[in-house]
């Protein structure tokens, strides 16, 4: 939350960018009937509304003052007919504009989502999920709003003012000219005022996220706070925050309360001038009572378009900044793309060779330099090392989520950059440390491995992965919902499912990131069996945490500080008594702590 805010604050001050505005407008023009529809409706409406005031003048001058009932009736009848027409126009512009707004949002989300699917993993590593989320939600909302209501209000505002002015000039050109002089002042003051208010509200939002942060800390740390008896000071600190928030919010609120009176006062000056000058003109006979009334109405109702335009102007900057961020996402070029000459491989079985590979996530921090490794078809490679040391780097390179900065990686003798990404990815099976399931049923999740799999194939895969039994025990079997992110299942169950999913995809290379968190013993054994089956005959990479897995590997790579510090078989590495030795002994003790736990319970039973 605070992070998103941070990003937004940073980019808020973007200068007015004509190109972006044009591009935003184009989003609307793609659905030009809707845009055309609302523009026609709103233009007609603006003219009509100005004409209504003129009709009111006629009621007074031609009806009442002339004492002509017939004329009065005619004017009222005309007014009524136009009123009904007006309702039709209102219906038209709301329908068109609201639909267009939704449609543009829909389009932009669709485009962005499609682009996100193409972007490389490096993009996702650098970009927080929350940031991307707000591109597809709040930013899209703002742009949609601008294309529909923003443009609409602007057109309406301008036309309202212009047609009102035209009618005023028609009624009395000298008085019309006086009003024309006041309008610019009105518009400028209103716009500047609104901007100021917007800035104040930004401050409020900032304070709000601080308050939220304080709540968060107060609640998650409540046990420590209690034991340290820090309640009083905490309340003082929090009181300070809410005090500041109060000040900011109050200031923003009274500034916005001042807005309307200020604009109203300016227009009251205009009304005053009209009364003065109009009263004098009345004597000379060049102004009627209806005319004076019409002028007052025109000036009074001019406040609405001015207000709306000021609002649009203030919000437009934000919308443009949103648009820029959206377009920057749509224009982002995937770092890893298929070469034009890339071919779809028939198979990627065979040896995997790292040839003088250089790699770095950031320019000045090399992770691999002139790295060479030859993996034979069918070998199992275990990657071990402390958390965050870079074990996934090698896996990321093999899967071509990242590409070497220099050197080559060969699949069966071919540089893998000459193959298509789809060809590689669809032949790699992957099981992640925190197994990711999508909300939906178990069957749907398994089918993710191969979309055209039959139900029988899905069940066979589940059976092979040892997941079948627990699935049947669930209330709805394969049709059970897993919940968002699989929250309704245990970690062990999720892991079994993701193994089954990998089994179904029948990969040629298998990549597994073992879970660090412990799962129950039964699930553990099942996972182990499923892994073994999957690794048979396939080149496999395992980011390993379990001793049994590590020991079974053909080769072990110890990764530390981003590089490979030791490599060899279990025995060779133990012999060295180096990093691997330390890791191994620690792991050995940890794994047996479960046994210790059990022994503490068991004893009571015997006692």
């Amino acid at each position, binding site marked *: 939350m605070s992070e998103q805010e941070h990003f937004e604050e940073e980019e808020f001050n973007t200068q007015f960018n004509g190109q972006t505005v044009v591009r935003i407008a184009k989003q609307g023009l793609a659905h030009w009937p809707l845009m055309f529809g609302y523009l026609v409706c709103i233009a007609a409406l603006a003219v009509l509304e100005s004409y209504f005031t003129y009709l009111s003048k006629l009621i007074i001058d031609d009806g009442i003052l002339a004492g002509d*009932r017939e004329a009065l009736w005619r004017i*009222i009848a005309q007014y009524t007919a136009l009123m009904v027409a007006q*309702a039709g126009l209102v*219906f038209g512009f709301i329908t068109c504009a609201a639909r267009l707004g939704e449609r543009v949002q829909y389009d932009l989300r669709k485009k962005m989502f499609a682009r996100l699917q193409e972007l490389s993993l490096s993009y996702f590593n650098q970009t927080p999920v929350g940031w991307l989320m707000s591109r*597809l939600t709040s930013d899209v909302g703002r742009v949609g709003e601008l294309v529909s209501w923003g443009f609409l209000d602007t057109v309406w505002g301008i036309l309202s003012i212009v047609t009102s002015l035209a009618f005023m000039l028609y009624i009395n050109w000298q008085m019309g000219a006086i009003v024309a002089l006041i309008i610019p002042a009105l518009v400028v003051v209103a716009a500047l005022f609104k901007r100021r208010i917007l800035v104040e509200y930004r401050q409020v939002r900032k304070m709000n996220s601080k308050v939220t942060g304080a709540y968060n800390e107060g609640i998650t740390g409540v046990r420590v706070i*209690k034991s*340290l008896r820090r309640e009083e000071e905490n309340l003082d600190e929090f009181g300070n925050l809410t005090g500041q928030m109060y000040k900011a919010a109050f200031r923003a609120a009274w500034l916005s309360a001042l807005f309307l009176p200020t604009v109203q006062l300016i227009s009251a000056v205009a009304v005053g001038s009209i009364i003065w000058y109009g009263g004098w003109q009345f004597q000379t006979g060049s102004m009627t009572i209806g005319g004076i009334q019409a002028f007052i109405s025109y000036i009074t109702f001019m406040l609405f378009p001015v207000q709306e335009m000021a609002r649009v102007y203030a919000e437009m900057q934000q919308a443009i900044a949103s648009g820029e961020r959206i377009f920057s996402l749509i224009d982002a070029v995937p770092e890893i793309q298929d070469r034009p000459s890339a071919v779809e491989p028939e198979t990627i079985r065979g040896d995997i060779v790292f040839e003088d590979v250089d790699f770095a996530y950031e320019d000045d921090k090399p992770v691999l330099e002139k790295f060479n490794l030859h993996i034979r078809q069918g070998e199992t490679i275990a990657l071990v090392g402390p958390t965050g040391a870079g074990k996934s780097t090698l896996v990321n390179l093999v899967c071509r989520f990242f590409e070497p900065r220099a050197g080559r990686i060969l699949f069966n003798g071919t540089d893998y950059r000459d193959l298509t990404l789809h060809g590689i990815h669809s032949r790699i099976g992957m099981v992640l440390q925190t197994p990711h399931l999508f909300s939906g049923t178990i069957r749907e999740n398994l089918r993710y491995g191969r979309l055209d799999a039959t139900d029988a194939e899905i069940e066979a895969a589940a059976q092979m992965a040892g997941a079948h039994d627990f699935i049947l025990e669930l209330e709805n079997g394969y049709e059970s919902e897993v919940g968002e992110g699989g929250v309704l299942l245990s970690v062990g169950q999720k892991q079994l499912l993701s193994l089954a999913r990998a089994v179904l995809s029948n990969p040629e290379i298998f990549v597994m990131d073992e879970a660090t968190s412990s799962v129950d013993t039964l699930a553990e054994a099942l996972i182990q069996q499923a892994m073994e089956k999957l690794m048979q005959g396939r080149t496999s990479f395992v980011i390993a945490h379990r001793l049994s897995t590590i020991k079974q590997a053909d080769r072990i790579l110890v990764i530390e500080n981003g590089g490979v510090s030791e490599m060899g078989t279990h025995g060779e590495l133990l012999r060295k008594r180096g990093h691997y030795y330390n890791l191994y002994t620690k792991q050995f003790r940890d794994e047996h702590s479960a046994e210790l736990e059990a022994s*503490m319970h068991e004893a009571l039973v015997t006692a």
Partner: protein
Amino acid sequence: MEATTDVRQNGTDPNRLGEREKMQENAERLTYDLQNILVESKAKALWRMLSGFRGIYAVATVAAGLAALGRTGVAYLLRYFIDDVLQVEASQWLIPWVALGFIGLALFQGFFTYLTGRLAAQSAEGVVRRLRNYIYDHLQRLTFTYHDRMQTGELISRATSDVDTIRRLYQDQLIGIGRITLLFLVNFVGLLFLDVRLALYSVIVIPFIVAASIFFFKKMEKTYEAYQNQEAKVSSRLQENLTGVRVVKAFARQEFEIDRFEAENYKKYERGKELANLHATFWPVTDVISGLQMLLAFYLGALATINGDISVGTYLAYAGLVINVIWPIRGLGRLVASISTGVVSLERLQQIIRQQREPLGQGTHQLRERLVGDVRFDDVSFRYATPASAADREKAIATQAEEEPNVPAQIAGIPSADREWVLQNISLHAKPGQVIGLLGATGSGKTSLVNLLPRFYDYTSGSIAIDGIELREIARDGLRAQIGIVQQEPFLFSTTIRGNITYGVGRDVSDEEVEAAARAAAVHDVILGFPNGYDTMVGERGVTLSGGQKQRVTIARTLLKNPSILILDDATSSVDTETDAAIRAALHRLMENRTTFIIAHRVQSVMEADQILVMDQGRIVQHGIHDELLAQEGIYRRVYDLQARIEEDLEREIAEVVEATDKRLAGDAGKTNGRNGAVTVR
């Protein structure tokens, strides 16, 4: 108030003085208690919450009425202008004054409009500021059990978005209803004064518009909710895709994902269209109804003028007032509908406020002296308590388990007699300065036992005495000041390192003291390595500390606190091997001259303790020192043996593997005189 003056007189350090002043600003917090908003009637609750701001809120409402009066005034001034000035030769000199009158009325109206907005904001912001402070304080004073079962996200959403809903209720909605109603009433009265019959003709459709508006916005709420739900679905689909991006890529399922997203995305577009359709129906329909009403009024008014019943000026005033009366009414429905949202939020906040606080200062014995640290448990048993009174229990049943203040969710509703004992018949005597080791499996009751000492939970039966004083009689705040806890998973606050070390010490601490504590906790050098030393921020906006570093910061914190009783909750288990020794040393310094309770999973951690308690299923099953316990048949020896066996196994296994490898390598060397792998790593 007295307290703050006192502080100011004593405060000599200018920096401190600034801080105190700030605090004085917030001294107000002590003077209110929001327990009184816990009433059945929501209207009453809202009224009580407004206490202290009722005056200005009333002024805000009156100001809204006066602003409306200003608008009526404009119509009357217009009548005067047309009838008595413009058309009367002798009064022409008044024209400039009438012009100024219009400006004056705008000033009048503007001033009161502004006043309404300002005062409503002041009340609303003031009310929610108090509400925020109170909820925050309340949350940190609720019991452990409450926090055990409430989710952080849920509490935060109540404390932020529900509070904001309340703010809008006061700032926009309630005052908005008042404003529209007053605008209607004042202008209607203005109409009545012009001509009673015409006035009545001009409001015929008002009831229909009000009803239609309320009906529409109620319906609107539902459609809008559906729209928002769909938006939430789009978001969660997106979030799943983004967090699962590796899976999507690994299975090359981009097309499939696009199709799935498309389904939800399109549905949102459809929902948006439904929303648009509702608006596109409501506004034109009410436009026509209101418009026809207005035209009817114009027509009748104009006829009356032609007949000579009213003057031209009156007609103009009448036409103006009719517009003021008819058009704003349509917005009323939106405000009325939004009140139901506010009521839901209020209820959610009341649920928090209803929970009982831990009475920190309650107890017949206020600790003043430093404790010696003699701790005696005598036949103590403990299980989670039921609500304090019958009335409380009824409320608990009525409003589901959530309302029961002191019971975890899983056992709420079970009569207390059937609830499982967490601790049973615990007796022990810890002499001052002794180290008590507690060994046992997860859930054996070790943590529950030590949690009784700071009175995080109160024991059910038996007696606990510290320095001979019954624990139940000691006030919690004084007690907790003398008990230090180093937790298994250390928690640091997002402030500076210094702030974290002095956190909760409760007195002014010099820089030298802080550094001494950090040195003793073996973390001083680490801290100096940070960009801003002791002033480096911890967490998101600063450095990230490793588990071991965090642990040592909390040790330094506890050293400064200088408690006489210490609880170490398996403090070394989450730490990697390299730093293990440093932490051990720091812990030893910390334990000096304090009665210490160590919770442990391994024999090593408790071996040197003066007393070792082995716990299982809430009971003490073994009690003694290391040598005694080793000599007995039981859990302790089993664990000890098992640990020894594990070490043996480890050594043997390594020896075997190494030997086998040695042999193989020797053989390989003999055969190939080299290696065949493509890689070497040094």
